[in-house]
């Protein structure tokens, strides 16, 4: 059995999770503070992938990044970057598609922290950034862990979006979920079963680990 789709899937999930962590923490922090019309719109956009059919999202990303016109053409000509049918395209689509899984738990945890924690830190002369990194983030560790694992696990199981924007190029965009579909199409049930079992096992171990870890090690002291 060719393990390349599994490694490609893990690589995609890892990159997506790291990128979303970098983007998600500050954005979730900003969204958690107060409400405004812009925030409501942004939150709705971030939440859309939860309810939108993945093929719809994939279709629009395909159109947006097509090298034939618009943004895709400009990226191709100016930077020689192609998002369609490439690994970077998969990463971009995964970041967009998995965004609510990273943002949701972090934003909700930040909102639940008493506002007096930030105020206490400010009264000691600490900046907003110092308060965020030294006080707020360390006190949402369980939710942060949940967000990281959910994002990683969700990216492992992506299908519609990656198929639309990445296609099925072996070694480049043929991730495990597509390899399963492809194997079934070729009536190769044993290979489909092997890929499925590996995906199932990784996801199950990840999810059960976070439950155990949060229950015994990282239970929020604010609870």
């Amino acid at each position, binding site marked *: 059995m060719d393990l390349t789709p599994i490694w490609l899937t893990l690589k995609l999930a890892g990159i997506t999770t790291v990128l979303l962590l970098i983007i998600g923490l500050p954005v979730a922090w900003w969204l958690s503070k107060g409400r405004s019309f812009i925030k409501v719109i942004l939150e709705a956009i971030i939440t859309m992938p939860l309810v939108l059919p993945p093929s719809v999202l994939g279709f629009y990303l395909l159109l947006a990044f097509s090298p034939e016109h618009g943004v895709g053409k400009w990226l191709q000509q100016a930077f020689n970057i192609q998002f369609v049918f490439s690994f970077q395209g998969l990463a971009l689509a995964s970041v967009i598609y998995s965004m609510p899984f990273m943002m949701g738990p972090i934003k909700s945890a930040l909102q639940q922290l*008493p506002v*007096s*924690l930030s*105020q*206490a*830190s*400010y*009264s*000691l*002369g*600490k*900046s907003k950034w110092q308060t965020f990194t*030294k*006080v707020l983030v*360390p*006190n949402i560790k369980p939710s942060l862990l949940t967000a990281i694992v959910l994002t990683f696990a969700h990216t492992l199981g992506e299908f519609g979006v990656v198929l639309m924007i990445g296609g099925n190029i072996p070694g480049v965009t043929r991730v495990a979920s597509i390899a399963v579909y492809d194997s079934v199409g070729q009536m190769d049930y044993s290979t489909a079963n092997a890929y499925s079992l590996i995906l199932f096992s990784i996801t199950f171990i990840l999810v059960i680990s976070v439950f155990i870890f949060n229950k015994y090690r990282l239970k*929020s*002291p*604010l609870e």
Partner: protein
Amino acid sequence: MISIDIEKKLKVYQGQRLLKIAAEFPTGSIIKIHGPSGAGKTTFLKIIAGFIQPENGKIVADKVTWLDTSAKIILAPQKRKAGFVFQDYALFPNMTVQQHLEYATKDGAWIKRLLAIGKLETLITHKPEHLSGGQQQRLAILRALAIKPKLLLMDEPFSALDADMKTGLINDLRSFFKDQGTTVLIVSHNQQELEDLADRELIIDTNFHE
């Protein structure tokens, strides 16, 4: 000298009420603030600290304008550096007693003295969840003192302390305030409390008067 003249609309059941306070406090004075629940005592302290903005007002502390709504001057809480003891303590769950004080100051000798004042020397590795209510309250006071504030705002700071601990701590605080020339505003629900510590009194009710 701290001079305060503020107006803030408070949300109350079925409407709004105006919190209007004008007062001047000499540097080094200790002021006890009391009044009925919901009168706006905590809001008043938070306005001074810069956590809440009033609709109209001016606050000048030692000739520095902290707030002037007409001139659109709003000094950030970080610049005001008023020590604040929160009613809910607002301790950081991720930090030990020692780390709380180290977060506020790098002065090791001062941290040692604070720990002695609060009688928390043996608990430096404990996080708030492993401290009693009284110990948490003392840590909240010590953390606010750690920055040696010129103005200290205390919201029900002794409510969880037993009588002996309270008397001892108040004696230590009195000498600290005198040494540092700290101006202190203490909210207390008990009108008889702190009579031997405070030298002034501010009553906040629906009709403010000093």
